[in-house]
């Protein structure tokens, strides 16, 4: 009775969330007719959808049962199966939260598009379908429904990427994105096909049941790794990501980077840990290596960017890398049958997915705010926002702290868990692994510090200092909705950082349902100390550290207050910054984004494909008297030249070669038919 009701509850919530998303898409069809109401048409249902989705996620992650349904859609012999289990619940929750935040952010943000040339209807419909598609992906329980939802997600997001289609660059990146998405989808389809043993029954239950010989299962795994990796953006398949994510409207970028990548991760987890079952440690090693490379590569390139959204996109690649590292560790430990250790890795991966969704969306929304306020994406022209928009600056700071994995914020918890998992390497008998894992962990540490450097750079250049361009010097604080959206996400970053034990207890329902085990954290007052393995081995108390920070802030407050009205402390005086006595220190003399990352560029030079240009036009024969000196530096992703351009060239060559068939001469065509006939006759005799 009671069970039934809870079961019913989650079912209704899920149903509502999907339907409201679709309703948003449908209502938006009329957006262009009621321009004034267009934003409401889209965002009110979306808001509801977000709420319902996150509520549904919560219900199941707090222990209520999920459900399985069949819809009368799809193939006659393969109706759509939907299944809502803890794993789906987590990711549906993620989708819900971010959708919720985005629907707070959106109305104020899209207002400027109302005056523009681009259609509201397109944006609305595509957004609604995009969200609905993602929700269906995590719900789907058979290959057919999964593929449909997956491609719905891809196509909708493609249309959003191509939304501002007047710029040729946007069109190009949209094309690249859709092409990669298509190839990825094909690989995924293949993976499912192989897994099903080329069987006609493609429901996930059948896939779970299927037993594969080891070569075939390896093939299936490889296909899935690259198929989902294509979407998740693992190196070297990441190339579309920094092209596509930035060009979409910012709240869409938040959805793509924050959520869609997670959906890809979901697919990978679902495939590897649920459908394929008992992963071998060799696959784990592959995932681990790919993950480490992806993470390092992503953060290094993020450091080199000066387009804010591009930078964020590259940092998404980095975080995906981190998640894959965790997954790799988990698979290694499961494969060498230390399930209780693999569990930590899996939980860390899930945790980091949640965290990255939170802070990356937060950061993208922050970037969106800047763009909306001063139409500027280039770091080199920003500066001093902290003086003009304090709240945005505060929220963005929280985002930066979280993504740089600093205690007591959420990024740190997941990365700490990953390191803890790695630290259990001695438990493995295989010496190679015991060496490999620490090195991977070291790369992870390098990554996280580089990430910190990267976001010091972002925050320091964009928000601190003084505005480098005229139009960023007089920006105003963003509207209420935008602040609310960022506030919600920032708050969640704090909460999930300070109370890891609660979140982990929620996550362990997932491991329960996938592996059949859950994390045992044996301390009194578990909420205070996070001790994944055992209290002796490692412990971390986020609340206490948070308390420490708060005390420090309090101290400052006290001193600040006292210094106001205590005669003994002399009052503060303001002077110009020290200018070595030359005078006339101005904003253009600040350290620039390029110069900030120069040392790292120097050190990791071979990894980059750098084009420097120095324009120095001066009076003839007196170099010192320069009229103007301009310096530009472009860092191009090296995989273009290594991989992508050659493939393109090759396709074109083959196409040209083939097109010679169509000579235009009738006699040649007749000759073709003649010889075809001869060949066939010869074949049959």
């Amino acid at each position, binding site marked *: 009775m009671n069970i039934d009701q809870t079961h019913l509850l989650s079912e209704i919530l899920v149903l509502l969330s999907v339907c409201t998303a679709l309703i948003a898409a449908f209502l938006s069809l009329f957006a262009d007719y009621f321009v004034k109401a267009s934003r409401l048409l889209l965002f009110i249902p979306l808001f509801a959808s977000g709420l319902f989705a996150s509520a549904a996620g919560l219900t199941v992650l707090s222990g209520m049962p999920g459900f399985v349904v069949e819809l*009368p*859609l*799809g*193939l*006659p*012999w393969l109706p759509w199966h939907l299944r809502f289990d803890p794993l789906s619940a987590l990711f549906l929750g993620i989708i819900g939260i971010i959708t919720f935040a985005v629907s707070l952010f959106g109305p104020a943000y899209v207002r400027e598009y109302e005056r523009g*040339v681009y*259609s509201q209807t397109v944006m609305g419909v595509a957004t609604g379908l995009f969200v609905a598609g993602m929700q269906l992906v995590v719900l789907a329980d058979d290959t*057919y429904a999964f*593929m*449909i939802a997956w*491609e*719905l997600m*891809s*196509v909708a997001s493609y249309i959003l990427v*191509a939304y501002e*289609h*007047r710029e*040729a660059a946007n*069109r190009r990146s*949209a*094309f690249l994105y*859709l*092409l990669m998405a*298509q*190839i990825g989808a*094909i690989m995924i*389809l*293949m993976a499912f*096909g*192989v897994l099903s043993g*080329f*069987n*006609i029954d*493609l429901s996930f239950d059948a896939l779970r049941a299927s037993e594969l010989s080891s070569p075939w299962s390896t093939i299936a795994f490889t296909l899935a790794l690259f198929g989902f990796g294509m979407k998740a953006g693992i190196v070297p398949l990441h190339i579309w990501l920094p092209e596509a994510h930035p060009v979409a409207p910012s709240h869409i970028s938040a959805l793509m980077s924050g959520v869609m990548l997670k959906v890809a991760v979901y697919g990978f987890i679902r495939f590897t840990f649920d459908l394929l079952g008992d992963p071998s440690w060799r696959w784990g090693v592959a995932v681990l290596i790919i993950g480490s490379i992806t993470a390092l590569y992503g953060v290094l390139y993020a450091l080199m960017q000066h387009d804010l959204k591009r930078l964020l996109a590259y940092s998404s690649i980095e975080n995906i890398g981190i998640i894959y590292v965790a997954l790799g560790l988990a698979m290694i430990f499961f494969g060498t049958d230390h399930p209780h250790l693999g569990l930590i890795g899996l939980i860390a991966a899930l945790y980091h997915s949640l965290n990255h969704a939170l802070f990356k969306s937060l950061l993208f929304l922050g970037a969106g705010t800047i763009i909306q306020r001063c139409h500027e994406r280039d770091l080199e022209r920003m500066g001093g926002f902290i003086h003009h928009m304090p709240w945005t600056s505060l929220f963005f700071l929280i985002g930066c702290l979280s993504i740089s994995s600093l205690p007591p914020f959420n990024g740190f918890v997941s990365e700490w868990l990953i390191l803890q998992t790695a630290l259990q390497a001695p438990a493995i008998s295989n010496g190679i692994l015991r060496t490999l894992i620490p090195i991977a962990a070291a790369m992870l540490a390098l990554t996280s510090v580089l990430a910190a450097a990267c976001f010091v750079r972002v925050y320091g250049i964009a928000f601190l200092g003084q505005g480098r361009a005229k139009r960023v010097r007089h920006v105003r604080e963003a509207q209420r909705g935008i602040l609310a959206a960022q506030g919600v996400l920032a708050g969640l970053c704090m909460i999930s950082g300070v109370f890891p034990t609660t979140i982990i207890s929620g996550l362990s329902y997932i491991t329960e349902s996938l592996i059949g085990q859950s994390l045992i954290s044996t301390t009194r007052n578990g909420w205070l100390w996070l001790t994944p393995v055992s209290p002796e081995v490692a412990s971390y108390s986020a609340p206490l550290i948070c308390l420490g920070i708060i005390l420090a802030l309090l101290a400052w407050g006290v001193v600040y207050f006292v210094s106001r009205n205590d005669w003994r402390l002399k009052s503060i005086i303001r002077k110009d910054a020290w200018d070595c006595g030359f005078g006339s220190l101005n904003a253009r003399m600040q350290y620039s984004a390029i110069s900030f990352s120069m040392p790292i560029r120097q050190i990791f030079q071979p990894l980059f494909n750098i084009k420097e240009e120095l324009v120095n036009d001066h009076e003839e024969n007196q170099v010192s008297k320069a009229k103007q000196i301009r310096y530009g530096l472009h860092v191009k992703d090296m995989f273009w030249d290594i991989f992508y351009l050659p493939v393109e060239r090759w*396709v*074109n060559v*083959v*196409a*040209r070669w*083939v*097109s010679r*068939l*169509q000579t235009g001469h*009738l006699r040649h*065509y*007749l000759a*073709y*038919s003649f010889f*075809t*006939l001869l060949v*066939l*006759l010869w*074949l*049959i005799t």
Partner: protein
Amino acid sequence: MIALTWTLLIPVAGMLLLALLSSPKVSGWLNLFVSILSFLSSCWLAKKVLKAGSFGGDQFYIDTFNVYLIVLTTFVGMTTAIFSRPYMQHEIEIARLTITRLKLYHASYQAFLFTMLLALSTNNLGVLWVALEGATLATVLLVSLYRTPESIEAAWKYFILCGVGIAQALFGTILLYLAAAKVIPDDGQALLWSVLHGRAAELEPAVMVIAYVFLLVGYGTKVGLVPLHNWLPDAHSEGPTPISAVLSGLLLNVALYAIVRVKMLTDAALMSGTDYNPQLAGHLMMGFGVISFTVAALFLHRQRDIKRLYSYSSIEHMGLMTFAFGIGGPLATFGALLHMMVHSLTKSAIFMTVGHASQIAGTQKMDHIRGLIETQPAVGWGLLIGTLAIAGFPPFGVFTSEFLLLTATMQSWPWLTIPLLLGLALAFAGLFRHLQPMVFGARPELQSAVYVNSLPMMIHLFLVLWLGLSIPSFLANWFDAATQLITGKALL
């Protein structure tokens, strides 16, 4: 039988009327009216067949397989007629056509439909041949309707190539008759498919193989299998757009239908013999299919002319269907039947939008077609969505059928999925690299919206979408019955 008579007679009557009638406005409406009538009668026919099962005298034979194609033919014929009325109106207005040619156009349009229906409904393989030749003759003058040098050239090539192809088919038919004459004494019966199918096992394999090769090459020319496809892009690109729509949507299907019928006989004959691989017929089709699919996908990349682009995509899809029928087996056949339908619908919808697009730009050169979405959203989005559908994106029906085909391929020939998937990716890239600049971007100067009746396009795309989301059970059973007819095994 009455339903059948109506279905066949209505187009003939329409042809005669339209040949006499000379007012362009009225003839457009009349054309539409006639097409609607024949669609209704074909539905009636389908209803009878689905209720009573296959029937027919000795000259005509209707079963679930060909009645399905009959309905499809009349349906696409109808929607294309809806589309063609304003389109041809516009052509008259910009004086690309004269009234007399319009008369010719309408008459041959109905004549073409008639030959299609005849080819589908006849029981006599000889008549089937005659009807297909008649289809060539009916359309060749339409291809050269504009009398431009290019159109003349295209028509000439179309005429000679299909003529030669059809001649080869006739030789095949004669050999078939030769083989049959030994088994079936009454030479009036000897070419009747229903009779042959009954006693196919007794036909002499050696003769049947040679006959099959000739028929395959002959009708394959009409299907547009590489390397016999050369007429296809020319004819599609130079003729008026409604004709491209029906050529792609119908003629190719019917030619493939003929091949499948013959394959059924050949398979049965080869089963009986020992000195031939019983799968030979299927393997030949698969070979043609894969080659056509991949080569056409590569061709897509270097197109300049929008209609050529999509005609190559037609070749690609026909290749896919041929491949699927070649695999045989219930799943593949089911997928192939579904693919016939969704491809006809999608491709004719695309050709409709393409027609309007080229009217907007005043040319078929893709370099001049730009910013459709801004110039005329209906056309732009129609083209974009249609192309997404034809490229096999869910939730459109093409995805469904391709999904089935891939599954079937994985079951029987796992390693053949690789070229297929490669071809899919290539084809997608080839289509979109041309499509994006056309639909997106700012609206060019001097280009303005034209009068568009986007109803048929929307109907088609909606149907395709519906098929992608769920196949209605009656249709599924229909396909299943056809599948059982072709392969002998039911899928469901």
